C-alpha cells in the first residue's frame, strides 16, 4: 500500500505538520504539474498527469482528518471498517440523535442563525475528537480505540455536510 506521508517526506503521525506538508506539496507540484508540460510530448504529459493526480490524492487524504486517521490506522494494520462496523456507544448515538433533531428543527423553521449555532458546536466537538485521536494514535498507540474515534468523527462529518444541504435549502 502506498504511504501518503512518505510521498511528502513526513513522519507518519496524526498530529499534522501542516506547514511542512504544504511546502512539500508545492515543491512536488512545481516539478510535476501539467502546466509544466503543456508544450511537451505525449509521454511526458501522461506521466505528469499521473503524478499530479497521485500527489493531489495523497495531499487530500492527509488534509482530511477522517481520511488521515483511516490511512494511518491502515498503515498500522487496523481497518477502520466504516461500512461494516456501525456499532456505536449508546451515549454517542443519543447525542447524535439530539443534534439531528436540532438540525431538522432549524431547517424546518428556515432558521440560519440556529444552523450557525449548531455548526459551531459541531466544529468544537470535531476538534476535541481530533485531539483524542492524536493522543490515541501518536501517544498511546491504541489503534483499536482510535478506530472507534475515527468512526465517530466520520459521523460528525456527515452531519456537517447535512448542515450544508440545510443552508442551501434555506437559501
Amino acid at each position: 500500500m502506498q504511504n501518503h506521508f512518505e510521498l511528502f517526506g513526513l513522519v507518519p503521525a496524526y498530529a499534522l505538520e501542516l506547514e511542512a506538508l504544504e511546502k512539500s506539496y508545492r515543491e512536488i507540484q512545481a516539478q510535476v504539474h501539467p502546466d509544466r508540460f503543456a508544450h511537451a510530448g505525449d509521454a511526458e504529459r501522461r506521466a505528469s498527469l499521473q503524478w499530479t493526480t497521485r500527489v493531489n490524492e495523497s495531499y487530500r487524504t492527509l488534509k482530511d482528518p477522517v481520511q488521515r486517521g483511516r490511512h494511518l490506522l491502515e498503515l498500522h494494520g487496523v481497518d477502520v471498517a466504516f461500512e461494516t462496523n456501525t456499532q456505536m456507544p449508546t451515549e454517542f448515538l443519543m447525542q447524535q440523535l439530539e443534534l439531528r433533531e436540532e438540525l431538522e428543527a432549524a431547517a424546518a423553521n428556515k432558521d440560519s442563525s440556529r444552523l450557525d449555532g449548531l455548526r459551531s458546536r459541531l466544529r468544537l466537538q470535531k476538534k476535541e475528537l481530533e485531539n483524542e485521536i492524536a493522543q490515541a494514535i501518536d501517544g498511546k498507540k491504541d489503534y483499536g480505540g482510535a478506530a472507534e474515534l475515527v468512526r465517530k468523527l466520520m459521523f460528525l462529518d456527515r452531519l456537517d455536510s447535512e448542515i450544508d444541504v440545510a443552508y442551501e435549502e434555506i437559501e
Partner: protein
Amino acid sequence: MALLQISEPGMSPAPHEHRRAVGIDLGTTNSLVATVRSATPAVLPDALGRPLLPSIVRYGKDGAVEVGYPAQAKQALDPRNTVVSVKRFMGRGLKDVAHIENAPYDFVDAPGMVQIRTAAGVKSPVEISAEILKVLRQRAEASLGGDLTGAVITVPAYFDEAQRQATKDAGRLAGLNVLRLLNEPTAAAIAYGLENASEGLYAVYDLGGGTFDISILRLSRGLFEVVATSGDSMLGGDDFDQRVFCWVVEQAKLPPLGARDMRLLQVRSREAKEHLTYHGEAPITAKLSTGDVVDLSIDSETFCNITQTLVQKTLGPMRKALRDAGLGVEDVKGVVMVGGATRMPQVQRAVGEFFRRDPLNNLDPDKVVALGAAMQANVLAGNKPQGEDWLLLDVIPLSLGVETMGGLAEKIIARNTTIPAAKAQEFTTFKDGQTGMSFHVVQGERELVADCRSLARFELKGIPPMVAGAARVRVTYQVDADGLLHVSAKENSSGVEASVVVKPSYGLADADIERMLRDSFEHANEDVHARALTEYRVDGQRLLEATRSALSQDEKLLGNDERESIRTAMLSLEKLLPGNDHRAIKRAVDALNRATEDFAQRRMDEGVRRALSGKMIGSL
C-alpha cells in the same frame, strides 16, 4: 547596415525562440484575444483599433459568414441568421435554455446539443463559436506575424464538463492548439494578483453576459490556489436586458412581437441598461415594423427594482463558496470584480454590502480575463524560465457521479476537488459469460440522477466471458487539468483492457468533429492535407525540442540501449519533418513518443526526488 551580433559560445542571446501564444476570452457578449509582448500582457485590437469582438455570427445564403461588428449591425434586420450569445447554448439541450421563447432562432430539436437552422445550413453552437475563435486566431496571427504555438481559452468556472468539452472542440475546429481551458475568475486572479503583488484570500466576482461565477482563491508568491468555486451558468447581464425588455413590452402594452422587432427592442433594452450605469434615467425609443412607436424612459430606481431578484440570485453561490472553503466574509482580503455586468451600480452595492468592503475595480472588467489568460498561455508555452513562473491549482466546480440502482447518483469526485483528480471503482459481472457493461456518468450535487446533468453513457466491451462474479473490472475516471473527463477500464483477473465507447449526452462525438472539420475546409477552400501537414510539423518540432531539452538535463538517467533508440527515433523524425508525407511524420512522432515513455516517467520521479531531497537531508 546590419548589426553584427556577437555572442560567446554557450551564451547564445536567445536560448530559444519566443513562442507565439495567446489567451482568448470567449465571452457571451464580447470576445478578446491577448498576448504577452516584452513581458507585458496586452489585448490585440482589430485593424480599426477596436479591442473587443462582439460574439455575434451571421450566416448568409451564399455561405458567407460575418463575425463581430458587421454581424452586429445587421442583427435587427436578419435576426434568424444572426446568432448572439451562442455561449448560452454550448453543451446544452433545447430544454436547458432559459427564455428560449424570446430567442428568434429556428432551433432544431436534435438529441444532445441544441442546433440552429440558418441560411447556410444547420449549425451547432460549437461551429458558431469556432467562427468567433477563427477571427481572433487570424487577428493574432496577423499581429504576431506567424502561426500560433497555442492558445488558452477561458471558460466560466461553473461550466460543466459538457460545456468545457464543447469549448475545446470549438478551439480545435478553429485550428487552435488549445494549451488549456482556464477558468475565467482564475484568469482574472492571475492578472490582478501579479499586477498588485497580492497575498492572502481573495474572492473573484465574475458576472458576464451570460454566466455568473464566484471563486475564492488563496494567493501567495508563485501560487494561485482555488479554494472553492460556485456560480450559475445561466445568469448574466443578458438577463438584466431581458428584464428591461419585458418591462418595455408591459409598459407599451405591445402585442406579441416578430423576430425583428423583438431583436430591436432587446438591443434598445441593453443600451438603456448600459446608459443607466452613468445616468439616473435612460430613454428607450424604437419604431416597430407594425408602425407602433415605443417612447419610454426608465429610471435607476425602476431598473433596480425589476432586477433585484437577479442580484439576489448571486448571493446564494457566494455563501456556498465561502462555506465550502470553510471561511467567513471577514477572512476575505479583497473582492475583484470581473465582467461588464459588474459595472451596474446595484451589483457593486450588493457585493460591497455582502463582503462589507468596497470591491476592487482598478482593472478593466472587460479585459482582465483575456490578460490573465495571455499570461498563463505565456507560461504554458514555455516562454518563462522556471522560477519566474507560477503554479496554478484549480478545482472541479461540480461533483461527478455515476448512476447506481434505483436512479441514484453515487459521487465519485466531489466538487472543489483539486484537479487533476482520478477515482477508480471495481465492478463485477452478474451473469455467466457477460462480456459487456454500461455506465452513466452525471454531474451535479443532487441525489437523484434525474436532477443531475447527464454527461455521458459508456459501454464496456470485450470482458472475457467468465462465471458471474469472477470478472473484476476496474473503471478509472480521470479528470484532467482542463476539467475534462476520461474513462478507462481494465479487467483485472485477465489483464484485458476493455474498450470504452463513450456517448456524450450533449457533446459531439469525434466523428461529428471530423465531419465539421472537413466541411470547414471545403468551405474555406483549404487543403486538408496541407493543414494536417502543418499541424504534424508543429507537433514534431515541439516534441523534438522537448526531447532535446530533456536529454540535456537528464541524459544520465538513460541506459545505452535506450539512449540509442531515442536518438534513432529523433533522427528519423528530423529527416521526415521537411518532407510532405504527413502520415509518415505522424508515425515518427508516435514512435518518438513511445521511445521516450519510460524516460519521461523516470524524469518525473527524479524531479520529485530532487524537490524533496533538501528536506530529507535537513530532517536527518
